[in-house]
């Protein structure tokens, strides 16, 4: 039982290889094995979305995926989206529009929002609320999160237009 498996992941563009028990949950792999601590553990029951990462282009809750399932996948976390010196427009917008208070849900929020804006580049408030329904925030009341995502969408669309 519990033979370790040879796991290969690509996390934020970097190839990772290691041995792990298949039962290891991806969120623990990221946080404790790879020291990528942006994705947070909130509820650990696939409700809160604090652990949201992008796996092969899809938003997924990393607390509800075994590392064995993710074997061979490309994973993007908040660390792969932007950093202190090169903030993603969503990160800038969350900062400017007070889209966070305690900040615990924010990495998951922004990681999810990057996919939402890929799917719907100019979302309505309703589309934002529906698309972000898998991410809970206990501080903001969501108003400023919606505002931040709208602002980031406008910023990103303007930048795209200017580039064309």
């Amino acid at each position, binding site marked *: *039982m*519990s*033979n370790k*498996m040879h796991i290969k992941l690509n996390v934020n563009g970097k190839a990772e290889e290691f041995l792990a*028990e*298949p*039962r290891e*949950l991806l969120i623990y792999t990221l946080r404790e094995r790879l020291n990528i601590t942006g994705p947070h553990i909130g509820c*650990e*029951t*696939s*409700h809160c*979305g604090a652990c*949201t990462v992008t796996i092969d282009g*899809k*938003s*997924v*809750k990393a607390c*509800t*995926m*075994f590392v*064995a*399932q993710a*074997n061979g996948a490309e994973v993007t976390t908040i660390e792969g989206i932007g950093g202190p010196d090169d903030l993603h427009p969503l990160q800038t917008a969350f900062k400017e529009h007070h889209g966070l208070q305690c900040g615990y849900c924010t990495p998951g929020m922004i990681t*999810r929002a990057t996919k*939402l804006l890929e799917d719907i580049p100019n979302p309505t408030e309703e589309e934002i609320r529906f*698309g*972000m*329904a*898998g991410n809970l925030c206990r501080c903001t009341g969501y108003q400023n999160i919606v505002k931040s995502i709208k602002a980031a969408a406008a910023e990103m669309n303007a930048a795209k237009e200017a580039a064309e």
Partner: protein
Amino acid sequence: MIPAAFEYYRPSDLAGVIELLEEHGDDARVMAGGHSLIPMMKLRMADVPHLIDLQGISGLSDITIDTESIRIGALVTQTNIICHEDLAAAAPILRETALQIADPQVRNMGTVGGNVANGDPGNDMPGLMQCLNASFTLIGPDGERNVAARDFYEAAYMTAREDDEVLTAVTIPLPEGGYAYEKQKRKIGDYATAAAAVQITKIGETCASASIAMTNLSDIPVFSEAASTALVGTSVDDAALKAAVGAMLGDIDPTEDNRGPVAFKKHVAGVILRRAILRAWSRA
């Protein structure tokens, strides 16, 4: 929350899956997206010494629509259902239902096959498939067989699937007429307090056929033949609605839990079914 240790398998074809199921019997479980099974394993309520991940098997992720029926592979996700325009045109009730399941991240992983095969009374697809008179394809050591959704569910988590069989596809006769999936839940991501799936056809102003199934109001989904029959031949007026709701209440068997006492659930079931019928009728 660390689940018990298990052996992990990712076979590349169905023969490999069936071989493992034959070898390990009920010590083995197949997994699609895992969003029902993994939470149960984390709580150690499900003991799965041998976990068979289906993600490596090709041919289970297709949606095909022909002139008579729709075939949905077991690994088609709820997100795939929502995004498929031809499917939404052919059977809009599928998208309407999938949009009411969980949240975007969970819908990216959760599959149709897992939802119907798991046998959780809270899942939405089983009631929907009973409403649509779908059938499930099961493949095992003795070959392939089809079981009607209306005959598939025996008790909570108990289905007609044998331990060495895999559910590979859902086949739905092309639905006709108006439709509605109406669900009352406490919050996003919650199971239904009550939900109703309704398909109705009309000739002139008279109901020609109706199909009604209810979710999370018994230990299995409830296809209510009596409620369906109560609408046929009527103009779906208030008397017909009352008769259908009354018939449905005779078929469900809710239990008290954290979603409320039995009387409340029956009340909600009535409200939800009435709304679903009226919406389906307005679209017929």
